[in-house]
């Protein structure tokens, strides 16, 4: 699903954000990506979501080598990656239904199909009946669920979440994580970037740890701690 082979990312000024990173996230696998600020988490996610290109090395997503992907192909690749953000990145002047249906609108689905599948996605994340609200009138947890519904509506095989619980209290954080678990049970690969080690420790999933751009650990957090 995600394959990194000796990936380096060097920014202008010879700043090395990622050094020789190797890992493989299999299809249907769920994992955490952790590390302190500046460890390279965001760079790694940007490489997967094609916001950045690797300086050297090879990245394969969903069986496609994206290391040298053409600019015109990027939108089509992104349609197979569901992305969830800490700040939700929702359109506050549009309804929840319009926000969730956006990926389908882009793919050219008709309004009937967009509405039908949006309602199913909202039901899946526990937001039935909120479709006509504007996100501004929802709580932070609900807004995050809208973001998740938008990310999963076109059933991407891979789900990326960048600090999805960053602005949520512990109870809501656990609810969101259990939502990811349920999505993972349906076969989606899930990679969650977070620096909340307490939250990771409560879950029994593979954890990739970055430090100064290097992958210093790849395993279960509980195993590593204990």
């Amino acid at each position, binding site marked *: 699903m995600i394959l990194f082979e000796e990936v380096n990312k060097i920014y202008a000024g010879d700043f090395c954000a990622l050094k020789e990173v190797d890992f493989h996230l299999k299809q249907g696998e769920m994992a955490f990506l952790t590390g302190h600020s500046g460890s390279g988490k965001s760079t790694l996610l940007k490489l997967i979501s094609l916001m950045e290109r690797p300086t050297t090395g090879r990245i394969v997503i969903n069986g496609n080598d994206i290391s040298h992907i053409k600019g015109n192909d990027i939108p089509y690749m992104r349609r197979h990656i569901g*992305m969830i953000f800490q700040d939700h990145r929702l359109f506050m002047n549009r309804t929840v239904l319009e926000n969730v249906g956006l990926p389908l609108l882009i793919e050219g689905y008709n309004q009937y199909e967009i509405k039908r599948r949006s309602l199913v996605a909202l039901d899946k994340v526990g937001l039935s009946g909120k479709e006509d609200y504007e996100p501004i009138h929802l709580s932070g947890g609900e807004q995050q669920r809208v973001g998740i519904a938008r990310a999963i509506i076109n059933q991407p095989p891979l789900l990326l979440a960048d600090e999805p619980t960053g602005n949520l209290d512990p109870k809501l954080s656990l609810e969101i994580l259990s939502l990811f678990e349920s999505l993972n*049970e*349906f076969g989606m690969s899930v990679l969650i970037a977070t620096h909340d080690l307490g939250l990771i420790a409560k879950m029994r999933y593979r954890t990739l740890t970055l430090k100064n751009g290097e992958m210093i650990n790849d395993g279960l957090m509980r195993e590593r701690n204990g």
Partner: protein
Amino acid sequence: MAKQNKNLLSGSPRITKVSFLGRVASVFQQHFQQVFSSFSELWKTPFATFMTILVLGVALSLPSVFHVLYKNTVHVTDQWDKASEISLFLNKDISEPRIQVLINKLELYSDIDSVSYISSHQALEEFKEMSGFSKALNYLDENPLPDVLIVVPVEQAMNAAGSKLLVAKLKREQGVELVRVDIDWIEKLQAILSVVVDIVIAIVILLLLSVLLIVSNTIRLNILNQRAEIEVFKLVGATNSFIQRPFLYAGAWYGFLGGVIAWLLTFGLVLSLRSGVNNLMGLYQTQFQISAMSIEEVAILIATATFLGFIASYISVKQYLVKIEPK
């Protein structure tokens, strides 16, 4: 862990895949929706939109007003040009039979429509009547006025060039002392008009350029204001063409509405000028009705304005939108 279940969100036993025809229909539907949604987007900031459209309308109305004025001026000079007659002043010693021979000869000219004869006696009587100096004129020993032939050229020879040619031929006729045609001032007017047209073309180009800049800048600001939205669109897989469409349509709408305002302003100006022009033309005994823009001209104005708006928007989109990348 990896349980494959493709029915995660379908809500039905199997996800409905959109057929090729369905996608084509959907693309048209999207275009249709984006055309109208971009129109309603404009009115989310009604004051700014109205001001922009008004500026565009004024900028576009100047070329259209110039066009209407030019069209009407050409129409007027055409009328005056066509009304021109050529006066042949004959030698004092020419005999009546010789005059008749000359009339017969002139009537055979292909570029002469009619020839009428005013004898010197008839001319003097008319002059006495019109001038009010009849008593004074009675003291003259002899009639100082010559016999005159009034030549009306055919339609094709009524323009300045045709008249000139005819005058040259008439001057060569025996018994003709002087040929007068009242066309010099029309030629001067046409020369002035030609210079004015060149100046107007330069002004029109500058105004159309200003329309491009106004729309382009408005769309640039729209793009920059919606930067965050554009980033989200790109993150969820929207292509540049999908994202840029509403901006292109908005540019076209600006142009279209600016064109409509320009037409209304031009029409209003023509209406306000109509009575004044009628009075002026009455003084010259000319029947002339100032004409507004025809339907074809209005269509060309609005289509050109729409096209300019689209092009201006396209420039901004290529300059700014394409370069926005999610961070």
